[in-house]
C-alpha cells in the first residue's frame, strides 16, 4: 500500500464504530509492511529482532520499539524535512534529549484525537465551555499536548473557552473569574491541562482559601503526571483535592494517558477509585510484556506496556513504553513509570549515574 492508501484506510478505519481483532490485524500488518519498507532504522531494528514481513504473521509479533529509540533514531517513513508537524517530548527524563515523532500529515492524528475525545470526554455534548491549563501551540509548537488541547478547544469548546497559562504562568485572576462565571451560569464547565498545572492551581486556591462548586456535568481532564514541575501528590490526594476545590466529583475527573510517541490517547472513566482501568479506541491495542524477553505476560501479571497504534503510521506503530501496567477486563491499569531500578547492593546503577551527570 502507498502512503496515501494507508492514510485513506486509516481514516476509514477510525470512522468505524468498532473493529474485530482480524480487521485490526489486517491493517496492522499492512502498516508494518509500510514501515518495514520505508523506515530504514526500524527495518534494521526489526531484522535484529529476527522479525521481517515474511516472519511476522500476527500483530503481536510486530516488534515494539523502545520509546528511548525515538530519542536516538529518526523513525520516519518520509523525509523528516517534509513533515507537516514534528512533536517532541519534553526532555525531562533523559537529560534534555528529546524524542521526536514526525507527522507528514496531521489528518490521521487529528481524526484519531477528535473521534476518541468526543467519545471519552465530551459525554454526548457537542461543545462545552473549556478552560485550558497548558501553554498554547504558539508557545509550544512541538508539544503534542498543546496541539491536543488546541483541537479540543477549537472543535469541542464554546466560543468563550480560553487558555490560562501564559508566559508568566497561571493567570489565577482570569481563571477565578471564568470559574465564577461558570459557577453562576449553571452550564457544565470543562477544565483541561497538565496534571502539574492542576497542582499549581490547587496550591494557589488553597493559599487564598477559595473553593468553587462547578455546575453538575462539569468535567476535569488531567494528563502527564507531575514531572518534577510541581510537588508530587498521590492519585487519591490529587483527585480528592480537585474534587474539594472545584466541586467536580472524582468520577468526572478523567485522566488522559498519551505520549508523543503515539497518535492516539487512552482514557479512564473517572477516578473514583485509583488506579482506574484505562482503554483506547479500536485502532490501538495494548499488551503487557516481560521487557527482557518481550513476551506477553498473562492477564493479572505486572509488566511493561506495549502499545500498538495504527494511527502512528509514519513512525513505528508498536512501541515499548517505560510504563508498568497490568491487563484487566476492559483495558489495563497503569502502575507508574519504571525508571530502571537503583542497585540492590552497593554498585552504581545507571539512574544514579545519570542523575549525577545531570548534576
Amino acid at each position, binding site marked *: 500500500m502507498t502512503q496515501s492508501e494507508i492514510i485513506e484506510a486509516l481514516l476509514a478505519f477510525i470512522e468505524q464504530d468498532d473493529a474485530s481483532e482480524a480487521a485490526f490485524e489486517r491493517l496492522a500488518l499492512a502498516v508494518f509492511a509500510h514501515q518495514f519498507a520505508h523506515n530504514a532504522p526500524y527495518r534494521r*531494528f526489526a531484522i535484529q529482532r529476527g522479525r521481517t514481513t515474511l516472519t511476522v504473521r500476527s500483530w503481536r509479533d510486530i516488534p515494539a520499539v523502545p520509546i528511548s529509540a525515538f530519542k536516538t533514531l529518526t523513525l520516519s517513513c518520509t523525509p523528516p524535512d517534509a513533515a507537516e508537524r514534528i512533536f517532541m517530548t519534553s526532555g525531562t527524563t533523559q537529560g534534555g534529549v528529546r524524542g521526536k515523532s514526525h507527522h507528514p500529515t496531521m489528518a490521521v492524528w487529528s481524526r484519531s484525537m477528535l473521534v476518541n475525545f468526543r467519545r471519552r470526554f465530551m459525554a454526548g455534548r457537542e461543545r462545552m465551555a473549556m478552560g485550558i491549563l497548558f501553554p498554547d501551540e504558539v508557545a509550544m509548537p512541538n508539544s503534542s499536548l498543546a496541539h491536543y488541547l488546541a483541537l479540543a478547544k477549537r472543535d469541542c469548546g464554546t466560543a468563550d473557552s480560553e487558555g490560562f497559562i501564559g508566559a508568566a504562568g497561571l493567570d489565577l485572576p482570569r481563571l477565578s473569574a471564568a470559574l465564577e462565571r461558570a459557577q453562576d451560569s449553571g452550564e457544565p464547565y470543562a477544565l483541561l491541562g497538565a496534571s502539574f498545572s492542576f497542582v499549581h492551581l490547587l496550591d494557589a486556591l488553597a493559599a487564598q482559601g477559595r473553593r468553587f462548586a462547578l455546575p453538575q456535568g462539569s468535567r476535569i481532564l488531567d494528563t502527564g503526571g507531575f514531572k518534577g514541575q510541581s510537588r508530587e501528590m498521590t492519585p487519591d490526594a490529587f483527585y480528592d483535592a480537585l474534587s474539594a476545590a472545584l466541586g467536580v466529583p472524582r468520577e468526572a475527573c478523567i485522566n488522559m494517558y498519551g505520549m508523543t510517541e503515539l497518535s492516539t490517547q487512552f482514557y479512564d472513566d473517572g477516578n473514583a477509585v485509583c488506579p482506574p482501568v484505562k482503554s483506547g479506541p479500536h485502532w490501538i491495542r495494548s499488551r503487557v510484556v516481560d521487557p*527482557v524477553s518481550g*513476551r506477553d505476560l498473562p492477564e493479572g501479571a505486572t*509488566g511493561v506496556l506495549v502499545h500498538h497504534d495504527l494511527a502512528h503510521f509514519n513512525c513505528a506503530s508498536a512501541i515499548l513504553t517505560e510504563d*508498568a501496567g497490568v491487563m484487566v477486563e476492559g483495558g489495563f491499569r497503569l502502575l507508574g513509570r*519504571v525508571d530502571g*531500578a537503583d542497585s*540492590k547492593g552497593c*554498585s552504581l546503577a545507571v539512574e544514579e549515574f545519570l542523575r549525577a551527570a545531570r548534576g
Partner: protein
Amino acid sequence: MIETAGHLPGLPAGEVAWRTLEFSAWGEHVQVRVPELTTAQAGALAGHVRENARSYLRTLPVCQIVTTLDAAIARLLDRDDPWRRRAEAVLPIVTGYDRESVRLGLSGSLRSFRAPQLQRFLAEDFANPAVLDGFQPAMKGGFTRAQGPQLLLHIWAGNVPGLSLWSLICGLLVKAGTVGKVASAEPLLAGWFAQILAEIDPRLGECLAVVWWQGGDAEAERAWLDEADTIVAYGGNDALAAIRARVPVTARFLPHGHRIGFGLIGAEALDTRRAGPLARLVAQDVARWEQQGCYSPQMLFVARGGAVSPREFAERVSQELGALGLRHPRRALSVAEAAGLAAWRSREEMRGFDEDGTVVLGEAGDGWSVVCSEVARPLAPSALNRTLKIVAVDSPDAVPPLVSSARAYLQTAAVAASPRELFRIAALLGEAGVTRICGFGAMAAPEAGWHNDGRFNLLDLVRLTEIEQSAERAADGFADYVD
C-alpha cells in the same frame, strides 16, 4: 517461614513493635519481623550498649575479641551448624540469589574474618595493635593509646549478604559500642551474627545491638544519629547526603557511596591458551551477587593486538556467562530491573544501527547480556544483573582517560597484564581514582585487611590519646621515689 531480625539487648521483645517484611523467591516465601523502636526505646538501647561497652568490651584485650569473632565466624562457616543452615535456607529467599551463589559467596566473604585475617586487619592499620589495649610508647616520644567510639552507628544498605560484617567487625575490633541498622533488602545476617556472639560471650552480646527503621525515616534516624559519636553509612549519594545533613557536627561521618568496578585486559593476556580461563574468571566476577557489589565489574576494557581479538573475547565471555547461567540462574528481576535491563540493551542496539562498531551478543531473553564496542567509550554503568559492556582499546594507556570522569565512583579494577605492565598501569589507574586493583576472579572477594574505598577501616574509627613527653617528665617530679 517466619524470621525475626535484630538484636536488642536489654529490651524485652514483648514491649517492642514489630513490622513484617515479606520476601519471595525460588517458589518459597519468608516473613521477616523487624523491630520498630520508639525514640525512648532507641535512647535506652543506646545507653545500654554504650554502658556495657564501657564496662566490659573496653576491658577486653583485642586478642580476646579476635578469638571470639573467630569462633563466631567458624560457626557460620560450618555447614552443619544450625546458624549456617538457617543462613543457607533463608538468605536465597530474602535476597533472590540462588542457593549455590549464597553458599559460595558466604563462605568466600566469611573466610576473610578468621583469626589470622583479623590479625591482618589490625596489623594493616596499627603498627602495634596493643595501642588498642593500653598506652604504648610512641616513635616521637611519649605514649599513645587508640580508643574506638563509645557508640558507633552503622547504616547498612543493599542485599549482598555479609557486606554488613565488614564494618560491624571493624567496629568491634576497636571496642566500639555498636549499633547496626540493617537494610530492608537483607535484614537478617547482622542480627544472626550478633546473636552468635552473644551465645559465645553473653556479656559481649550486651555491647552491640542490631536495629531497623524504614530507610529515609528522618525521625527514627535522627534519634540514632544523635546518640552516636561515629557513623558509618552505606548507600547512594542522595541517601548519604540526606543522612549527612542530619549528622551532628560533633560526630564523625564515614560514608561509603555506590561504586562502579571495571576490568582491563592487556594484549599479553589474550593468547589462545590463556583467553579461555580468563573469560571464565570474568564471567564469575560478573555473575557474583548479580553485579550488585561495589567491587563488581560493569565494563571491561580489552586491548587489541593479542591473538584473541576483543570481539572474540566477548564471544568467549558470553559463552561462559551462558554456561554459568545453567548452574547458577539469574535472580528473578523486578519489573523495574527488567525494564532497566531492556532499556540498556536496546540503547546499545540502537547505537549499533548508527555505528558499525557496536554489537549486542545473545538473545534478548538470555539470562545475560554482553555488548562489544569497537569504539572507545567512557566508563558507564551497565544494567547490572549480568550485563557487561566490553570496549576494545588500542592499548591499556587509553583506559585511564576513559574512567577518570567517573572518579568519584571508582574503587575496584581487575587487571590482567604482565608484572611490569601491572605496576605501570596501576600507577595510572590510581591517579585516575582507583583504590583497589585485583586479579580477575577475585573482584567480589577483597582480601582481608583491604582498605575499603582507599580508607583505613580501623584507623578512621579511633581517636588517639597521647601522653606527651612533658607530662611524662613532669610526672617524674611528683613520684614518691623522687630524690
